[in-house]
């Protein structure tokens, strides 16, 4: 393509990505669940951001593209939180998951 923009130093970005990968692998070795969540998913988000911004040139792209992607993620969030009360819990208002408390008809009838 003909547009000119300053390229980021791709090798440097790659180096940081590998460092982050090592941290996320080392994280669980401390065996602190809360820290594992942070090292696993926090670093995944940082890595994703680095790749998207530099390798995919989102930094230099028209803003409409970023807007598009953020909108997509927001809609996924809507989906997740709309579904969560039903699927994520073993009992809710007026219903219980009878697999969990072993009262299901399959077991008894």
């Amino acid at each position, binding site marked *: 393509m003909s547009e000119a923009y300053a390229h980021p130093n791709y090798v440097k970005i790659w180096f940081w990505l590998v460092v982050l990968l090592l941290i996320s692998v080392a994280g669980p070795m401390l065996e602190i669940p809360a820290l594992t969540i942070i090292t696993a998913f926090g670093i995944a988000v940082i890595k994703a951001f680095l790749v998207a911004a530099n390798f995919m040139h989102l930094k230099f792209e028209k803003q409409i593209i970023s807007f598009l992607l953020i909108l997509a993620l927001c809609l996924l969030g809507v989906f997740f939180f709309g579904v969560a009360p039903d699927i994520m819990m073993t009992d809710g*208002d*007026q*219903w219980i*998951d*009878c*697999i969990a408390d072993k*009262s*299901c*008809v399959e077991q008894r*009838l």
Partner: protein
Amino acid sequence: MIEYFILSASSFSGDIDNLFLVITLIIGFWFILVFGALVYFTLKFRRKDGVKAEYITGEKHSETKWTHYPHYAVIAMDVVIIAANIIVWVNIKQTLPPKDNLIRVIGQQWSWSFVDAGPDGVLDTADDITTVNDLHVKVDETYHFELQARDVIHNFSVPVFRLRQDALPGRTIKGWFKPTNTGSFDIQCAEMCGYGHGIMGGAITVHTKESYDETIVQIKNGTYESHYQKRMGTKTPLPSNTSHTEGHNSFAVLLASIF
């Protein structure tokens, strides 16, 4: 309005009928208004030779008020509908009034099983009364039901009670009803459940105290005759050709046999 079409026979069916009436009045007003405008404009502004149409952009305030003001009125009436609805909904589905009786309703392909907890009000004890496709309840007493499905999704539906609730396999769903009229009514399965969905019905019989006790005695003696079968027998007999052939000689099956 619904009560003109079907009996209203539970404590909350009147609420649902009234909610229907409220919404009908509100949207009936809008329907007549908008439909009237549509017909009136269509008839009034027909093409006449030499008369040019008006040039209205619909972007000036003096013009947009014709759509915006009705629009605010729509919002106001929406609020009324939402409020009325939530009151009824909370009453029916979110609260469980104190129970007099407990039953378990189990849907399976393609029949309903009912387990009445009996006098002790606890399920899975010796005094449970189990019936198939045939539910007996006492008038003016609050029933709690525990809804389960054995195989696929079913829907426990009693139109005269204005009651419908899906039965999900893997879950126990609680609900309640309180019959107010005696008589024998249809139970439906209102969720597609396979081949026999069209025959998956049942009968709910709302008894007075005396006839309920009599029926329970009959069930225990084994001299009982299912109300469901009685209803099916006395009303309209099953057409013999559908129940026997089950569509084996039809076009699509014939074609399918070729493949």
